[in-house]
């Protein structure tokens, strides 16, 4: 029986499962207090799901090793900081906001617009970052994207020194931009920290949209082109896939999702925190994609939730008392980096294809198919 037909026969069961999970996901905050820690966790986790799915397009589908994804998180956050806070205190622009927000100084644009602008700006950033990498091979792409991530971090931290004209600064420097506007949807009160549920449902909607985009793209002309490029760039090009355009679209799409997620996260945290745009963030998101299975959409979702759980709940809440019981002298959060590094090393050696491997990637990693196709099939040259 062919693989596709086997997959199709599983379909009704899969749809039913998805519906059940979705129903649960929508309903569960209703059974908890308005500011429950679990809801808070899920908001964060869903944001990371969005980021990881965005990175999945770049690294998982198109095979472009991006180690600087934090750049798009930063771009999205700063778009929010610029367009929805009191940062530009001398301006007085209000667009789509009402109530309390409309009386504040600064620029205050409705989050829906901000989210879209963040996506666009991040996409442009993605294209600019991707351009220099087009002719480079895999590990060099990693270094260049990492470099860009670091450059953006430096500009974020020191942007208060960069001024345009009289009093327009690029960023607020180390102290970041606080507060920023919470989300405000038409017809609903401003979101606020006293009720996490609207935040949660918004995050859920964003995550579902991202999932939808991922699935649609994977099974499309563009998705096939990305996977072809990932496997064998030369053959893909020879079959009519335009390499430059296709790669840039991967960068742009992944970036756009990261930007919007970043704008959401910063609004949720009520701050644009300049210290959060570190290289370790890029690796954190990359680890989610790898843990789940490069290119495997559901795998990445699981990877994102799992790693967020380890980072936010497991280490502080579970390991901490454990360590205290055993009498270990230090706080387990101090070894987060080490645990993480250990996880990365173990994953690559033991199960590089991830938890829920895309069937392709399993073949690539266990049998070396589609790897190392860099020669052009020429005859032996002197």
């Amino acid at each position: 029986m062919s693989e596709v037909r086997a997959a199709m026969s599983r379909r009704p069961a899969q749809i039913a499962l998805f519906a059940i999970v979705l129903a649960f996901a929508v309903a569960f905050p209703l059974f908890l207090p308005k500011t429950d820690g679990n809801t808070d966790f899920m908001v964060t986790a869903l944001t990371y799901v969005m980021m990881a799915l965005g990175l999945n397009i770049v690294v998982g589908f198109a095979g472009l090793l991006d180690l600087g994804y934090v750049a798009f998180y930063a771009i999205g956050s700063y778009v929010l900081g610029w367009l929805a806070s009191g940062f530009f205190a001398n301006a007085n622009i209000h667009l789509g906001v009402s109530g309390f927000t409309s009386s504040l100084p600064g620029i205050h644009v409705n989050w829906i617009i901000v989210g879209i602008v963040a996506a666009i700006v991040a996409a442009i950033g993605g294209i600019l970052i991707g351009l220099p990498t087009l002719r480079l091979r895999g590990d060099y792409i990693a270094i260049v994207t990492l470099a860009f991530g670091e450059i953006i971090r430096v500009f974020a931290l020191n942007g208060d020194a960069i001024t345009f004209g009289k009093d327009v600064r690029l960023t607020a420097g180390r102290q970041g931009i606080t507060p920023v506007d919470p989300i405000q949807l038409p017809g609903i009160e401003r979101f606020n920290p006293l009720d996490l549920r609207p935040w949660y449902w918004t995050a859920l909607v964003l995550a579902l949209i991202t999932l939808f985009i991922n699935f649609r793209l994977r099974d499309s002309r563009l998705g096939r082109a990305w996977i072809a490029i990932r496997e064998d760039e030369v053959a893909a090009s020879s079959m009519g896939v335009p390499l430059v355009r296709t790669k840039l679209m991967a960068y742009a799409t992944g970036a756009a999702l990261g930007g919007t997620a970043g704008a959401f996260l910063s609004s949720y945290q009520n701050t644009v925190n300049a210290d959060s745009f570190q290289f370790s963030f890029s690796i954190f998101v990359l680890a989610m994609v790898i843990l789940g299975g490069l290119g495997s959409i559901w795998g990445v979702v699981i990877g994102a939730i799992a790693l967020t759980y380890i980072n936010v709940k497991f280490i502080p809440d579970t390991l901490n008392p454990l360590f205290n019981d055993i009498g270990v002298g230090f706080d387990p959060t101090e070894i987060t980096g080490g645990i993480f590094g250990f996880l990365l090393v173990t994953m690559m050696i033991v199960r590089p294809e991830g938890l829920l491997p895309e069937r392709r990637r399993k073949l690539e990693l266990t049998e070396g198919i589609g790897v190392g196709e860099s020669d052009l099939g020429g005859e032996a040259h002197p």
Partner: protein
Amino acid sequence: MSSEPDSPPTNADEVPDAILRATGVSKIFGGLSAVSDIDYAVPRRGIVSIIGPNGAGKTTFFNMLTGLYKPSTGRIAFDEGDITSGRPDRITKLGMARTFQNIRLFGTMSSLENVMVGEHSRMRAGLAGSIIRTPRVRREERKVREKAREELAYVGLQPSQHDQLAINLSYGDQRRVEIARALASDPKLLLLDEPTCGMNPNESARLVDFMRKLREERGVTILLIEHDMKVVMNVSERVTVLDHGEKIAEGGPAEVRANPRVIEAYLGKSGTEG
């Protein structure tokens, strides 16, 4: 010990209706010439071959035709348009497709998906269309899928094999998928790089028939690199011989086979050099 003139016969200008014409094409890698000053023309709807001993520069020449290498000198024209420094995907879009000497299928895609990638240049769905799936995009996907199945059937693959991972197919079937993938873009000119490599005489004979069928039914011009002399003699209308990057002979199969320079190139001088 040859009494032939030293300069290779360039009867490229004898080809009036050439779908592909290369003039003075060379490729130099770091000071060494892989291909030197080749004039070459392919007659429309012809089936022609390029042969030569290993290392003669055949695949390098192919790679220049398809845009993978940029020629160091010379010009290449396809269907009257200059493609000398064209990108491979643009050249494919113009109507030239190829297969590879070592099969380069996308091993973790099904045969069907492989062929669908071949249709990339004939499709229009973009980023937004792929996400939103307008009726037009859906129709296009359906048509592309159907055409892919047709091409696979045309090269002789069973429907049950369409959805199998390409890497799981037999070697011969993989070669067929590669051809189907090349045909998927409706090329005017098909470049086949050693298509009979690894085939037994039966399969080679069937490939010969297939090539004729392609030319008759679909008007495709075919350019082969081949090592199998039987196939070359059987199917080619014109044979071009390369050695050490230069064209040393060109003409009909029988004429070329009897050419002392060609024999020398294959056997080595005095028949003793390797």
